[in-house]
């Protein structure tokens, strides 16, 4: 790691003022640090200053009210995974949180950091490779090794978004509170993430002087079934090869509404409206679930090494749907 200086946050106002004018990378935020330190150690980022957000206890914790649940951005993944209300009413989120990395990382990593984490692409993470994300001309996955890369929404950068939490939050119709120099704003988690065709350098719309402060999830209806399915290379902890966050409102075997968001297959959490459309209003059986999977990957454009993800994603969706009605 290069040297940097370290400053404790005293207020959100102080943080946004330290961040403003610095552009990307000069001044960075540290919460759990599990993603940031890996970037610093590989010299992918070389900030002059880190601002420690953990001195802002108001950004930590889980609370519920009539509208739903609020999760402070500093809340650890472990606390989310173990929270009884989240386990019962937002099962997809508890399951996604449980699937993140290892116990040691979940004890430290935060939900805010999970949403803002950088891609794991081996070209991006190699300090000697100057790919499009780092200002170069090429996405090396296109002609290089692409086993873990995007099958949807890739052009011109074929990273996949590594978050398990984000697909779950989008499927739950969650919003996020962001603070900047002009004050607070709230946006849908779905609108937070961007594709490389809009901005090849970043994975979301957060500005250099903004902070993710809180996640807000609306109540789920009593007839909601939700789940998170994640395919990994082995049984061991890892990022998703493909994952499905599904939130279904069911009346018996009839699907009244379906939210299906995919992880590990695109540069952002990928909402499959195609799969949702197949399911909405239908009596769900094996054939319908398979049709949903097929439709979801119609537009997939695999690279040299990742065609397996097409079949995998298709079957994962079908399996998630069948589990929801069983």
């Amino acid at each position: 790691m290069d040297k940097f200086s370290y400053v404790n946050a005293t207020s959100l106002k102080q943080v946004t003022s330290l961040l403003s004018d610095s552009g990307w990378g000069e001044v960075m935020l540290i919460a759990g640090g599990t993603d940031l330190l890996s970037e610093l150690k590989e010299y992918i980022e070389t900030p002059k200053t880190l601002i420690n957000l953990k001195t802002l206890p108001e950004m930590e914790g889980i609370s519920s009210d009539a509208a739903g649940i609020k999760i402070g951005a500093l809340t650890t993944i472990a606390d989310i995974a173990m929270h009884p209300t989240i386990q019962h009413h937002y099962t997809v989120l508890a399951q996604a949180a449980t699937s993140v990395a290892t116990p040691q990382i979940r004890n430290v990593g935060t939900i805010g950091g999970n949403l803002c984490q950088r891609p794991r692409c081996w070209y991006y993470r190699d300090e000697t490779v100057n790919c499009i994300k780092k200002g170069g001309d090429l996405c090396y996955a296109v002609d290089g090794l692409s086993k873990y890369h995007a099958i949807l929404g890739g052009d011109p950068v074929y990273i996949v978004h590594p978050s398990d939490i984000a697909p779950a939050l989008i499927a739950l119709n969650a919003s996020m509170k962001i603070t900047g120099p002009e004050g607070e704003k709230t946006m849908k988690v779905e609108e937070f993430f961007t594709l490389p065709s809009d901005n090849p350098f970043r994975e979301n719309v957060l500005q250099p002087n903004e902070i993710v402060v809180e996640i807000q999830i609306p109540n789920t209806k009593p007839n909601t079934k939700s789940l998170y399915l994640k395919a990994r290379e082995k049984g061991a902890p890892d990022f998703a090869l493909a994952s499905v966050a599904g939130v279904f409102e069911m009346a018996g075997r009839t699907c009244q509404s379906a939210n299906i968001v995919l992880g590990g297959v695109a540069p952002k959490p990928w909402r499959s409206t195609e799969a949702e459309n197949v399911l909405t209003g239908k009596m769900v059986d094996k054939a319908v679930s398979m049709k949903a999977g097929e439709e979801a990957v119609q537009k997939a454009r695999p690279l040299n090494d990742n065609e397996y993800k097409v079949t995998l994603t298709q079957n994962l969706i079908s399996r998630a749907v069948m589990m929801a009605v069983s």
Partner: protein
Amino acid sequence: MSEKDKEQKQGKNISRRSFIKGVGTGTVAATVAPAILVGDEKAAEAQTDEAVASAKIQLNINEEVTEIEVEARTTLLSVLRDGIDTTGNNVDLTGAKLICDKGECGGCTVLVDGKPVYACMMLAMDAQGKQITTVEGIANGDDLHPVQEAFIKHDALMCGFCTPGFVVSSVALLNENNKPTIAEIKEGLSGNTCRCGTYPFIFDAVETASQEM
């Protein structure tokens, strides 16, 4: 959260005095990024923020307070293994191992406030105000912890390099859940890797330890 906890959280350990002292030792060059010293208001704020490139901090390791001067980039693992405290003594807690240095192998697992974490992925600055327990702090003097006894009984190691991390993770698991199922043991230890492949013996050891705790 009590006021005291909040104070600890807010990192009061980096006092203005220790910051100035730190500068005095000549180990500090830049204290505040120049980019943020724009305009009077910001400059004034930056002064009270006390951005430090290094600081004298206190860490509570195995129930003893260690005072040590660290650069901001120093990891907790570096302090444990290679740190020299302000009295000139080596911290010398080499039980936590430096193996992958990227939060993947678990060899550096320590307890922070009772929870297992990777010491390689935590800045020493971030460990202030926390109770840190390394594998050296698991036994009670010469009396080994039941997990350690069980590792010996089941021969739950081959080369032994990953063992300290596994012991710490096992203790953390059993503190949370004293009668884990095999599936829960596997999940609890999923952040540790053994390249010799002694997993079945490790799982047996944890099961035995759980019966004795």
